[in-house]
């Protein structure tokens, strides 16, 4: 039985459209034109226990709205969801005790107190027994290397340190489902890497089911085997990260290094799209099914020192995947 099961989730926001200027504002008092925004549009997926799934999409794609429905903050306009066998928006305490939502841009720690006070407060809110709390706190602060910061006022912590404390606060009740919304947003490269590694290890060790949104490709690449891509509220892909490339990229990159003289540009353009061109080096974007033919003819016709065939960088593919969902 899947831990998270969403079927045909749809969320429509209604917003009143205001016409420009003062006269528009006055007209708006009497009659309002309501526009509907389909933030999430018929999205279905299911996630098994222990999976770490990346939720990918540009800003405004509907990622956060989906997470809010799964955490019970929002009701869907239509469709259903079950998490751990609960309907999230009924907000039963038994459910709320078993999951956590971390939003990278919102903090839950108390600003004017040392982090340990907020952590202790969470322990009490979730009713974690003393012994479990001490053990977990020890373990988590050790792993994230923030033990010495427990007594520091939250407002004096760096953004990265605060995020680590946020994570600890959300894990103290040993949730079975962890929903992470942009956990690395705004962090420097080192802090991003730390958080990322921690999430991966945590998922492996505890088999906690994690659904993570990010718009940093690095996060997703490092963490998730499976990704769900949504754009404009619609799901456009659900599967293994490598398959994204297969599905959305019809081309590969062929790099040839020439030993002398190189090749005439016009000739190369017959083989594929020329991305980079110098006397000694050329990069071509070649259709998948023509890669073999193209590299053969390169090697036969010119003095080639080296030839290299690669996938198009994943960022570029994702961009394409986003674009294709818009159609």
């Amino acid at each position, binding site marked *: 039985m899947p831990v998270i099961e969403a079927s045909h989730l749809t969320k429509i926001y209604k917003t009143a459209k205001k016409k420009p200027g003062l006269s528009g504002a006055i007209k708006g008092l009497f009659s309002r034109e309501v526009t509907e925004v389909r933030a999430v549009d018929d999205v279905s997926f299911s996630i098994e226990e222990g999976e770490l799934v990346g939720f990918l999409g540009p800003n405004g794609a509907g990622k956060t709205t989906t997470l809010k429905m799964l955490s019970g903050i929002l009701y869907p306009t239509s469709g259903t969801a079950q998490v751990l066998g609960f309907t999230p928006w009924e907000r039963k305490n038994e459910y709320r005790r078993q999951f956590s939502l971390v939003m990278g841009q919102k903090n839950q720690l108390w600003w004017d*107190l040392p982090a340990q006070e907020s952590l202790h407060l969470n322990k009490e809110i979730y009713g974690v027994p003393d012994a479990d709390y001490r053990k977990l706190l020890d373990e988590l602060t050790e792993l994230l290397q923030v033990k010495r910061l427990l007594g520091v006022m939250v407002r004096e912590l760096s953004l990265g340190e605060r995020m680590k404390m946020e994570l600890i606060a959300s894990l103290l009740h040993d949730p079975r489902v962890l929903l992470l919304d942009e956990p690395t947003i705004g962090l420097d490269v080192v802090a991003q890497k730390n958080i990322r590694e921690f999430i991966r290890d945590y998922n492996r060790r505890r088999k906690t089911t994690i659904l993570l949104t990010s718009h940093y490709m690095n996060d997703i690449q490092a963490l998730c085997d499976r990704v769900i891509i949504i754009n404009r509220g619609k799901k456009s892909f659900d599967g293994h990260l490598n398959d994204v490339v297969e599905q959305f990229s019809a081309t590969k990159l062929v790099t040839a290094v020439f030993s002398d003289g190189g090749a005439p540009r016009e000739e190369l353009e017959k083989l594929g799209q020329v991305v980079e061109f110098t006397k000694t080096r050329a990069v071509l974007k070649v259709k998948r099914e023509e890669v073999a033919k193209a590299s053969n003819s390169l090697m036969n016709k010119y003095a080639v020192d080296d030839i290299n065939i690669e996938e198009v960088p994943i960022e570029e593919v994702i961009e394409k995947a986003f674009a294709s969902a818009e159609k």
Partner: protein
Amino acid sequence: MDTPATVSPRPGWWKYWVILSTRTQEDMAYRVNYVVGAIFRFLPLVTTLYLWMAVYKSRGETGGGTEIAGWTLGNMVSYYAFVYIARGFSSMPGMTRDICVDIKDGALNRYLVKPMSYFWYQVVYRLAHKLVFWLVALFTFPPIFWFIREAFTHRPSVLEVAAFVASLFIAFSIGICFNFLIGLLAFWFTEISTFLFVIMVMEFFLSGHLIPLNLLPAAAQPFLNYLPFAFEAYWPCTILMGKVPAGELGGLLGLGLAWAVSLFLACLVVWRLGVKRYSAVGG
């Protein structure tokens, strides 16, 4: 699926006790603010008292007697002093605005996803604030009361003191529930800061904070005296002044309690409706 997460054997209210103590610690970080606030909050009292002294003086000089609506100058002075005590329980500075901000910027989410109640969270939050306030007031109030000691001509009976204490509890409950309710309006309206100001002034006036309610037009009194606001300052003060006959104390406190309970129930209902709307339109 494996066994559900273990839950500590502590009772349900325990978490609110911990919030209370944590919140008190956080407030203590601002104790200097409280001390400064506690001293300067008496400045308006000085001007109010001078005003009343002038009123009584000119009335005496023009042959109007030494009483206004049956109150001597001493009564008036002790009323305003007691108002500071009562409002120390019923006023909830910043509460409505805080709730509005929580609703508007989505900070409410962090309470919705946790196994806790936002209402009780707010109650202990304010309770903590009051605790620190009174900790400071224990040092700042006595000298000021000593300074105006001659005004306190009435020696309250045990019954009156008991009724006064009960009325402070009612004042606190009504203050919390009323401000909570107003804060919840943010679920329905986007811009309510002007409205909040109007409400604040209205509470200031209808509670008897500005002037005692018995000085208002006689026609309005039967109505205003029995609104919940009167229990936020006017009734606690007049009880301690001995202006409420012993036989009426029970009924009066009963009415106050009924208001507190009604407002509490209204909080629960409006909260439910509000969250329903919040969850529908987006947080």
